[in-house]
């Protein structure tokens, strides 16, 4: 079974110093100054290293107050500067899941409802080598569960111009998954996925940055969900996702706004829109030198169903594709969240976040949501520490 992807890194607050750097590098003759020397890197042998440890808790409810699923996951992230231009990044996650699998609509009463206890361990490792005007990253990821194994490798390169105002990125990834089932010990299927990504980051002016990224993925092999009684999907899936982001710093408020729009489409007929806004605010303290950073966010998501999704299974013949998987239905969701970070002492900080999400057919745009879906809600919490040295 697939899990929801969790969290993301904290983005930089776009600040005065960045504006000065941008203006300085626009002076003819100064464009060749190396803009991206990491400040910590410039200082002797220390700097550029980071360790983050966080604990995540995810809870889901459906049809009233029944708690359907909850996930607890500790996560460790390490980043280290090996030589001045080589960076190594790794992460490790241990998810433990318990709960009931999704209950459907009345037409499928009696299906599922059994409890799930599962554990997932996953790790990633990446090495980035930076040269004068480009960088190369090679990475790998592994994920293991009782009934699902995944291995992937990726390669990415970034290229920039002398003033670092324009950055182009290009990446390729290859993955191989192995799917089995705790229900059916004879099930042993493969799936392989290829991905391509192309993106552009552009500094628009003194206070704003624009980014756009397109990813394409092609997946061949077993796509169905082994736990659904009636679920048969095409053996291949191609998808395209296009993300555009705009970041703007407001000097009066001393905060930054991040706006994202993402469009997704695949050849199963699913297409989806995501719009998200985040605000980064730094708040000072008079008593000591430590600061809070507060990041509230709001996200809307709307998805149109896959061609072969239906909430009532027809009389099947072997050739027809069908799935009642809620994730392929038409629905919309709203998420509201807040994250806070606080520096406790030099190099050590605390991070807390809470997000509330509600998903229901009614929230969908471009037409009604799929009928018969029970709305569900979810809450994510996280608590973590970070160390920079």
């Amino acid at each position, binding site marked *: 079974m697939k899990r929801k992807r969790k969290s993301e890194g904290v983005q930089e607050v776009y600040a005065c110093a960045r504006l*000065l750097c941008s203006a300085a590098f626009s002076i003819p003759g100064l464009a060749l100054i190396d803009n991206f020397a990491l400040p910590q890197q410039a*200082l*002797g042998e220390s700097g550029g290293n980071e360790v983050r440890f966080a604990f995540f808790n995810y809870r889901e409810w459906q049809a009233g107050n029944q708690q359907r699923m909850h996930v607890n996951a500790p996560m460790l992230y390490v980043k280290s500067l090996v030589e001045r231009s080589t960076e190594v990044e790794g992460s490790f996650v241990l998810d433990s899941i318990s709960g009931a699998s999704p209950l459907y609509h009345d037409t499928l009463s009696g299906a599922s409802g059994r409890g799930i206890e599962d554990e997932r361990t996953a790790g990633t490792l990446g090495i980035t080598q930076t040269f004068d005007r480009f960088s190369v990253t090679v990475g790998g990821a592994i994920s293991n569960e009782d009934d699902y194994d995944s291995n992937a490798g990726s390669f990415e390169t970034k290229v920039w111009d002398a003033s670092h105002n324009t950055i182009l990125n290009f990446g390729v990834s290859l993955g191989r998954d192995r799917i089995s089932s705790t229900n059916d010990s004879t099930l042993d299927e493969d799936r392989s996925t290829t991905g391509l990504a192309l993106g552009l980051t552009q500094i628009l002016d003194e206070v704003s940055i624009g980014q756009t990224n397109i990813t394409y993925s092609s997946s061949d092999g077993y796509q169905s969900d082994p736990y659904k009684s009636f679920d048969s999907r095409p053996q291949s899936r191609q998808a395209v996702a296009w993300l555009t982001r705009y970041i703007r710093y407001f000097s009066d408020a001393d905060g930054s706004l991040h706006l994202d729009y993402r469009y997704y489409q695949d050849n199963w007929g699913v297409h989806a829109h995501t719009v998200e806004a985040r605000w980064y605010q730094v708040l000072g303290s008079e008593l000591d030198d430590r600061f809070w950073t507060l990041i509230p966010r709001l996200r809307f998501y709307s998805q149109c169903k896959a061609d072969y999704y239906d909430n009532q299974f027809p009389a099947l013949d072997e050739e027809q594709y069908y799935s009642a998987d809620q994730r392929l239905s038409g629905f919309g969701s709203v998420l509201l969240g807040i994250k806070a970070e606080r520096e406790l002492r030099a190099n050590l900080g605390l991070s807390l976040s809470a997000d509330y999400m509600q998903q229901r057919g009614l929230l969908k745009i471009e037409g009604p949501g799929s009928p018969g879906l029970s709305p569900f809600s979810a809450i994510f919490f996280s608590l973590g520490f970070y160390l920079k040295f």
Partner: protein
Amino acid sequence: MAIQEFRDSFKAMGSRNELSAFCRNKVEFQSLFRGVVGIISDIEATYSRFIPTSIVSRINLAAGSDWIDISEELSGLLDYAEVCWHQSNGLFDLTSGVLRHAWNFETKRPPNQEEVEELLPYIGWEKVERRPGRVKLAVKGMQLDLGGVGKEFAVDKVLIYLRERGLPSAMLNLGGDIGVLGPKPDGSSWQIGIRDPRAFTESIATIALSKGGLATSGDYERFFELDGKRFCHILNAKTGFPVQELQSVSVAAPSCLVAGSLTTISMLVGREKALELLKQSAFPYLIIDSKGAMHSNTQNHCGHI
């Protein structure tokens, strides 16, 4: 052919300066040294308000009357100065040099309120008129003074010059504004001492720098004290009076020009705003406040508190 460290000093821009570089032999070093002195001398001749034929002197002479054509480089520098002016809410202002008529650090006498207020109409970046490739100071008697950015800009230009010549490691000290091209051949960093604001010949901390610029602003460079109060040369462009909150600020940044502006802006905006500004920049900094207490985001300094 082992490379070794060569060092030489020279006078320019009103201060004692020094270049250290790792070269194959003395001849190579001397050639680079001459090139560096030449670059700095060109910058001084072009931008110094003390030299009557410099572009800055010509602009100042034409204040209140003529538009002067300027180079793209000066145009870029003025754009940069404007960003500094915005970011400091008008406190960092390259037209505030006229205040030296009121503040004479030789006679050590503070001016009275009127003497300062008389000068305020001649100050204000909003009175600098710009058109593509040209500039004009709106009011006769206004003066542009690039003293606040000149040395740091020179350090950056010298670093680029040395880098273009393939030099892997060098350090330039231009009157306290530092530029470092890269770590020393053995991988170690250049050890830069930060002056004790109250004991000029002693250092209060050391910062190890392997790349980029380091600048320091302090209330001890030109000052006088009266009745226990210190009047220094860093003047608030709005009030016309010196800042009094911090003893010194040092910042390391990829560009010495940016480092220098951040230190000046920090001295101008006071302790709280300076801490906020520097923390957000993520650049290494060291602040020594009015009580002599050190605030820093880097462990990489040793000092006696």
